[in-house]
């Protein structure tokens, strides 16, 4: 074992990259859950985003167009969930599972001819002299635009939820849909928009994996990141800043176990690969005592007649 093989600067830069798909997906789900909807289809929407983004980027040669297509793909799939849960009033848990099963299959179908292709690379943002600062430069100023966009969106969602009227309405719908309905807010419309935002974010997260983090296309490549994102929302107790912290924690663990695999630690590869999932469970156990911050209407079906 040779721990000195792990370069701390590259490690930190790497875990910022590893955390970004989680930030996107979990942030989207946070908004969805704030509106009182539990969408368990994050994994399905991510993998759809991963293939839509990948295919578009390969066909057009533009990674940014790829990300746009990923957001559209994720949002489109989430509309299916919105239809099931908001219009046909289906059980949200079952619908979310259906979305994941369908997304995994559909992405595999779309991605058949894209296996083994390299996508076009998204260039780093040019920070000029900042890039050349020792240590800080490679860690903070050597990434692509999407990584910074992820952080910017955390701030934007935080501001939106905390300081704007739209955020207040969203939270009201999530806390008590009956009260919000009585005040004249369109519960179904607001929730549908939130679900689509969640889908678009999950799509971006998926595309970040297939276009930047890995970068290639394989079936089922999101490998549970969508589910970890769901756990992350609980971890963050529905607060954007804690979500950012949690994403870096999980990104750090993922990156660390990959680095340890590379460094040839005496622990078998499989057990290292298990670690992010086991740590997710442990974190859930520690944090599940506090349920007070969950939106009160989370997972409940709304129908105006009842």
């Amino acid at each position, binding site marked *: 074992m040779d721990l000195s093989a792990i370069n701390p600067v590259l490690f930190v830069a790497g875990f910022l990259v590893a955390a970004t798909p989680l930030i996107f997906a979990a942030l989207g789900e946070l908004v969805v859950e704030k509106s009182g909807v539990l969408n*368990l289809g994050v994994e399905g929407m991510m993998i759809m985003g991963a293939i839509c983004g990948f295919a578009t980027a390969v066909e057009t040669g533009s990674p940014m167009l790829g990300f746009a297509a990923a957001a559209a793909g994720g949002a489109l799939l989430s509309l*299916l969930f919105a*239809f*099931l849960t908001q219009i*046909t*009033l*289906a*059980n949200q*848990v*079952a*619908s979310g*599972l*259906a979305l994941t*099963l*369908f*997304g*995994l*299959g*559909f992405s*595999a*179908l779309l991605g*058949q001819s894209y296996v083994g292709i390299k996508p076009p690379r998204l260039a780093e943002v040019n920070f000029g002299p900042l890039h050349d600062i020792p240590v800080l430069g490679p860690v903070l100023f050597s990434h692509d635009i999407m990584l910074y966009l992820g952080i910017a969106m955390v701030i934007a969602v935080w501001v939106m939820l905390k300081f704007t009227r739209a955020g207040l309405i969203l939270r009201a719908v999530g806390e008590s849909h009956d009260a919000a309905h009585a005040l004249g807010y369109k519960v179904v419309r607001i929730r549908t928009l939130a679900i689509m935002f969640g889908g678009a974010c999950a799509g971006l997260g998926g595309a970040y994996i297939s276009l930047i983090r890995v970068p290639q296309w394989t*079936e089922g490549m999101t*490998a*549970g990141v969508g*589910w*970890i994102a*769901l*756990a992350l929302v*609980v971890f963050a107790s529905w607060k954007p800043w804690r979500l950012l912290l949690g994403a870096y924690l999980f990104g750090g663990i993922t990156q660390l176990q990959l680095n340890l695999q590379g460094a040839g630690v005496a622990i*078998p590869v*499989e*057990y290292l*690969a*298990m670690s992010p*999932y*086991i740590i*997710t*469970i442990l974190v*859930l*156990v520690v944090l*599940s*005592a506090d*349920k007070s911050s969950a939106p009160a209407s989370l997972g409940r079906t709304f*129908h105006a*007649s*009842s």
Partner: protein
Amino acid sequence: MVRLEKRPQASQAFSWAAPVLAVLATMVFGGLLFAALGKDPLASIATIFWEPLFGDFAFYYRPQLLIKGAPLVLIAIGLSLGFKAGIWNIGAEGQYIMGAIFGAGVGLAFYPTESVLIFPLMVLAGALGGWIWAMIPAVLKVKFGTNEILVSLMLVYVAEQFLASMALGLLKNPEGFGFPGSRNLQQYPSAHNAELITGSGMHWGVVAALIAVIFAYVLLARHRLGFAIRVTGEAPRAAKFSGVNPVRLVLFCMGMSGLLAGLAGMFEVAGPAGQITIDFNVGYGFTAIIVAFLGRLHPIGILLAGGLMALTYIGGDIAQSQLGLPAAAIQVFQGMLLFFLLAFDLFTNYRLRFGRAEVA
């Protein structure tokens, strides 16, 4: 104006019509999907649903129906108990893997001893493996209130890694020339889950699945525990007042579904699959979720739904080799089925009203 009106009581008739409508809608939209892929839609649908049952080689495919259907029914029966009570074990795939590892592990530990006791021991070990794996989310939920959906799902990924480690390490065939994978249990008579009647596809897993169906039916219709499960799902507050112990219910439902999933994995590895390999699991644990819903969480319904889903697997394989239909298309097809079912289920609890709403 069209609007929805809640039915005073859920429609029994529609509850059974919804799956049928969902299957028909899936055939139509699946056909459109196949057409979009450049295949003849009618031929594809016929290949999937007709060929395995009445085609020229039906004598070969019909036994497959039992082989593919048994694990699906076994797992779905367990899942349905929890789903009915609002306890969501969605990690059956992991419990299936652990059951297979435990079962095969016990069998391989005795190799090459021959004894009639080995197979029953493997069955017990398989059940135990699945049960333990399901008890992790159950105990965490009961003790700490942890979300069982996320924990049981995380454990699928852990189990998959564990499977890889076993196939490459502890359970690897010492005479396998370095290839990953265990000894083939089909060549070890004491551990082989052989066909009970040659050529019928009937193995012990099929028997277990049928017993599970009967067991679940009696439990739900006649036993106090079955009543507790139903009342908890339909009216949680009423369940509390009628003295249902939620802790015991979670432990029972999760444990039972894990046990049955573990059994399914064990029967599969000792029979049709034969050996522990890295990718031995093929997603039965997830497809069983569709089976459970399609069967209305009712034991008889699940039996029928399991058969139908097995048909799509076999028919899908045939369509793959004869028409070049991609394997993923069948996965989409199965996912679609669940979508349509959930959508049509609206009319079980609501009905459409035409005309303007009256002021009450």
